[in-house]
């Protein structure tokens, strides 16, 4: 590694820390409905949206109404994306005359974008019309991210309200997230990206004769506007097949740096928003530091692996599936960020990474997407781990566990465990089935232990709502499309529903004052304990299967064994 490699990583982490309080406190104002920087611009417009949609913005919802609204809103979004694809050939803005998308693929893509997974079984440039990309995918990029934010806001209100019964208004949470946070950031980012060479046009693809006299068809499209929100909303579904490795999606090292920063920007800032809204800034930083420690640990392991000698190819640096302008360091940094957050966009091919780098990527996902995690989703996932942590700490000292003054009781723990177990079950059960049936095995691109990792990665990515892939696996088959789709649904709503049940239960409780016996959640010990719980749960669940996949492959690679 060169000096500039360390500088880029250092700058990345530095900027992440710097932006967190600024964006975080701005978001806190927005979500509390207070006057903020953009109120003069959007305030009247926001009220207008409420009026024409029939929303009473002062109305408060109980958890069941909140959940019902969320589910209906998401289901409608799913239906629209599904229908747009099934009938795209009859609709306008399809300059390439692309045919209707088959049902299993439409189903997979619609679920994928509704659940903020953005798994790509499709290849954008040869499957989806500009209209579907805009009206279907771009819209879901916004609303699925906003849905994640809504859930964490409900939880925050549950922990801060004393003996309450309502947890906020789902509609205003959605509208404010989009109008004041996601849309303005996307507008700025679109222009930055276009300045670097990301395309933004409605022209049809260009057929050209190259310098060498051969033919080349260059795909185009309104890409920058979608890529901006794809990065910011931890969505990750590319406009083009190879995602941010394609020069039109990510042309320069600077565009790469901006896109990388955008992956973690909002999830990181939300920890500060959280601290601000619960009236305890320090606790926000405590959560932030637990996430950052996990992130840097994974990144370090991944870099070490990628810069090692591979006796199979006889090379010291692994450049397979990487772009020259990014090099190894930026590819690895991206892979760590995109899997820590449930973003899932890629600028290099994870399938071609060395075994242990691939393992870091997959393990980041398996830990439940809580290392910054998805927009909103990372933080509510982390809250679930915090609940488990204070429960375990409570068991150790023999006191009723408390968090932020609220007693954590049986129902809360049951729900927290459910939210951890459901996605893990999807990963292990589905992978176990896929490795013994022909429909599962026939899609493999690599054999040996790497093949197992390909399948494992697919179901981890679905359950974690990540969306990145060991892309050699041909997932566009009815078997994978349908089952990965179901996996994404369980991974998303198997966490959201328990989280909102917890919110509904917690909000009713009184806030107990801090006493000498209260276990402090603002100490270094708490950070260590929290990280320990996350690693132990993830480790115990997945260590056996990771041993059979990436660990064995690493050992075999070192002895130059090939498959």
């Amino acid at each position: 590694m060169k000096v500039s490699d360390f500088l880029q990583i250092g700058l990345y982490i530095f900027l992440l820390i710097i932006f967190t309080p600024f964006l975080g406190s701005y978001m806190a104002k927005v979500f509390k409905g207070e006057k903020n920087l953009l109120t003069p611009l959007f305030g009247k417009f926001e009220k207008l949206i409420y009026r024409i949609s029939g929303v009473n913005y002062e109305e408060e919802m109980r958890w069941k109404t909140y959940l019902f609204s969320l589910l209906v809103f998401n289901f409608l979004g799913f239906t629209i994306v599904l229908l747009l694809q099934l009938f795209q050939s009859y609709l306008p803005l399809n300059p390439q005359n692309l045919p209707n998308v088959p049902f299993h693929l439409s189903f997979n893509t619609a679920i994928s974008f509704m659940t903020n997974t953005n798994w790509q079984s499709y290849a954008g440039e040869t499957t989806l019309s500009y209209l579907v990309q805009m009206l279907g995918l771009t819209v879901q990029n916004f609303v699925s991210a906003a849905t994640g934010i809504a859930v964490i806001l409900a939880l925050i209100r549950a922990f801060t309200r004393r003996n309450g019964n309502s947890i906020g208004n789902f509609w205003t949470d959605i509208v404010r997230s989009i109008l004041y946070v996601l849309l303005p950031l996307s507008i700025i980012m679109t222009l930055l990206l276009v300045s670097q060479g990301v395309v933004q046009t409605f022209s049809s693809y260009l057929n050209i004769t190259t310098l060498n006299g051969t033919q080349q068809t260059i795909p185009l499209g309104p890409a920058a506007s979608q890529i901006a929100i794809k990065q910011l909303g931890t969505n990750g579904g590319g406009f083009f097949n190879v995602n941010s490795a394609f020069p039109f999606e990510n042309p320069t090292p600077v565009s790469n740096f901006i896109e990388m920063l955008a992956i973690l920007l909002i999830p990181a800032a939300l920890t500060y928003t959280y601290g601000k809204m619960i009236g305890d800034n320090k606790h926000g930083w405590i959560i932030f530091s637990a996430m950052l420690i996990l992130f840097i640990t994974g990144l370090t392991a991944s870099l070490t692996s990628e810069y090692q000698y591979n006796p199979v190819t006889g090379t010291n640096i692994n450049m397979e599936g990487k772009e020259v302008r990014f090099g190894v360091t930026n590819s690895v940094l991206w892979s760590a960020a995109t899997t820590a957050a449930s973003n899932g966009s890629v600028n290099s091919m994870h399938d071609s990474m060395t075994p242990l780098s691939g393992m870091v990527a997959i393990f980041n996902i398996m830990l439940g997407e809580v290392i910054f995690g998805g927009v909103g989703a990372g933080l509510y996932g982390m809250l679930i781990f915090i609940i488990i942590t204070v429960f375990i700490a409570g068991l150790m000292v023999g006191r009723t566990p408390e968090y932020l003054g609220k007693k954590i009781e049986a129902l809360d723990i049951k729900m927290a465990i459910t939210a951890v177990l459901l996605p893990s079950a999807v990963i292990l059960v589905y992978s176990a089935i896929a490795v013994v049936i022909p429909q599962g095995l026939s899609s493999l691109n690599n054999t040996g232990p790497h093949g197992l990792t390909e399948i494992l990665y697919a179901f981890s990515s679905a359950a974690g709502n990540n969306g990145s892939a060991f892309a050699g696996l041909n997932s566009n088959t009815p078997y994978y499309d349908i089952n990965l789709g179901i996996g994404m649904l369980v991974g998303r709503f198997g966490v959201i529903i328990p989280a909102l049940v917890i919110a509904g239960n917690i909000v009713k409780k009184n806030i107990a004052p801090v006493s000498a016996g209260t276990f402090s959640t603002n100490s270094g010990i708490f950070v260590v304990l929290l990280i320990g719980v996350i690693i132990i749960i993830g480790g115990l669940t997945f260590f056996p299967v990771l041993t059979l996949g990436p660990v064995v492959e690493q050992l075999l690679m070192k002895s130059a064994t090939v498959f």
Partner: protein
Amino acid sequence: MKKNLLISLKLLLYLTVITGIIYPVTMTLISGLIFPYQSKGSMIVSNEKIIGSEIIGQDFADNRYFTPRPSAISYNPLPTGASNQGPTNIILKDSVEKRKKKYIKVNGLSEDTHIPVDAVFASASGVDPHISVENVMLQSNKVANTRNFDENKRIKLRELINRLIEKPQFGIFGEQRINVLLLNIELDKI
């Protein structure tokens, strides 16, 4: 319940108009005004004909030109793609060995030359526009010999290569590299 269903429908409709129509269309208009070249794909025009995009790599099999990186899609980006071969894949091992042998032979190098990794590993997009400076240097004799360059033209070629080296942006972002298409276009003018 029914009320919330109705709100849901209306809100989704309005948000679709805002984020799915107004946002991308406005961005297209503004981008087209401020960055007309970039937003339309950074197309290179020569004799009133588009001969390629500055940032999309093209295939050059001919020894008269500098060779770009190996590509899993032969530089046909419909769709874009990579090999996705893992580090213990026998096909990858064979490909890398073949590419090394070919590189040494075509460029007339000695067997123990250190071959740049970007010359033996396929890119992620399949249309990587760049190769490393080291890779260009090792290929320059091949190109000059095939084109029967005299000493004067060889100096010009060296100057051209030095001129086209893209440094890391702002001194730290990304890797030092050379755009193969731009290099080959200028090469024809020597």
